[in-house]
């Protein structure tokens, strides 16, 4: 049995943005639904940021597998990865990533032609990259770029 998490240490590391600036930056980031998601953290932007950092680590860990499965046309693996990414991203308000994953996860992939499949994998990959860039900007105390 796992224990509930403690406060994410990464979100409170020295040099991290303060709570007000983080909340402002998150609210201005169009790739996430911060307003809706902050309720999950009772307005604690630092805690929310910690979870977003965990999400980024997770996505970055899955990205090589996603690329490899896309190149090999391993549809079952792609669907499993898309499912996993969709769930985690949606819960943390990463709407662009969640939407791209949902597109890849929608319907049986066996019926998709390779080109469509590749374009969906590429869209998801790009959404993940954009999420990483946006999060880096928030961590730096700067407003994330759109997309």
């Amino acid at each position, binding site marked *: *049995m*796992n*224990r*509930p*998490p403690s406060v994410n240490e990464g979100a409170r590391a020295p040099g991290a943005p303060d709570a007000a600036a983080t909340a402002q930056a998150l609210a201005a980031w169009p790739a996430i639904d911060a307003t*809706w*998601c902050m*309720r*999950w*953290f009772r307005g604690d932007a630092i*805690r929310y940021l910690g*979870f977003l950092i*965990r*999400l980024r680590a*997770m996505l970055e860990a899955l990205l090589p597998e996603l690329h490899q499965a896309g190149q090999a046309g391993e549809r079952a693996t792609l669907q499993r990865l898309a*499912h*996993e990414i*969709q*769930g*985690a991203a*949606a*819960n*943390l*308000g990463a709407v662009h990533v*969640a939407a791209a994953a*949902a597109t890849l*996860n929608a319907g049986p992939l066996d019926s998709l032609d390779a080109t469509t499949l590749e374009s969906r994998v590429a869209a998801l990959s790009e959404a993940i990259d954009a999420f990483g860039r946006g999060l880096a900007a928030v961590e730096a105390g700067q407003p994330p770029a759109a997309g």
Partner: protein
Amino acid sequence: MNDRPAIAIADDEAITRDLLAQALGDRFDVRTFASGQAVLDHRGAHDVGLLLLDVGMPGLSGYETCRALRARPDQADVPVIFVSVHALTEERLLGYAAGGNDYVTKPFDLDELIAKITVAIETGRRTRQLALDAQRMGEAALVTAEMMGEVGVVLEFQRAITGCRDPEALADAALEALGGFGLDGCMRLRQRGSSCTRAASGAVSALESSLLDHLEARPDARIVTLGTNLGFSYGDVTLLVRSLAWTRSPTAPQTVDAMSRARDNVALIVEGALARLKAMADEDDARHLVVAQRLIAATRAALHDLEEAARVVHGDLDAVFETAREDFEYLFPQLGLTSEQEERLTEIVERQRARGLDVVARGRLAERRLQQLLDQMEPAALSPARA
């Protein structure tokens, strides 16, 4: 002490697991699991008030986990809310078919999720309470049915003993009623100085006979434990019930209840036998009284006949001597007797008449004595002293 309702979250994705745990942790005692199998393997899974179960997990899916949970008697009623990225109606239906109570899709609305969890926990609690109440009512109904059956045995015994005319039949009826409770034993009844001892099965052993003696010597003891047997001592009725040891066992309260009822019911049978035994003595007295009253009446009638006969004899005897005197007076002139001789003869006749009537009168003295005896007997017969 943690008084928050315990819930379990099973999701293979650590971020989602932790997100839910941190968001729900201030309202619920959250326990997290990384797989459906981990939930099933957890010994305390039946203690949680609700399970939040991700549908798409490697290994056992959420649906398979729920079905496995429902197959376990101690966890079958734990409310399950499925969590999935799929919002399709077909997916939801699969969730309900697997035994889920509700279905939420990612991303969740926190307030909605908390409301669903709270309702499901309360519904589950009420369901368990209802099941518990139903179980208790079922048990109570069974006990009531048993008690009704036992009361039926006692009532049947009370009905049967009204037809018993002797102690032997009464003891047999009591022992048959014991059999109605799955018990057996031996009984001794005493009436007017004599006793009869009967056994439900087999003969009364020497040991049992001595135990009955022991019980009779303690008429106020009422109920006495004698080794593995139970003795009842109610004056003229003593009963030894075999293998009804009166021991309380906290580990078998139902057995204790059944034994307690058996003891009470057997006591009712013994009391019924005692009452019937006394009633039989009263009936015996009543029968003797009727016989005595009939005898007295017959004797009075015979006495009356005797008095009538005595009166007739008295009259006849007097008439005989009167005729004899008249015959003498008629013959005197022809016999040529002197006046003195005639007077002597007449005196002889009169003296014999007096003696004869005296004999008859003495006979009536016996009648009067008999009349006095009857007068003394009648009040005694109306209120006979018990032998």
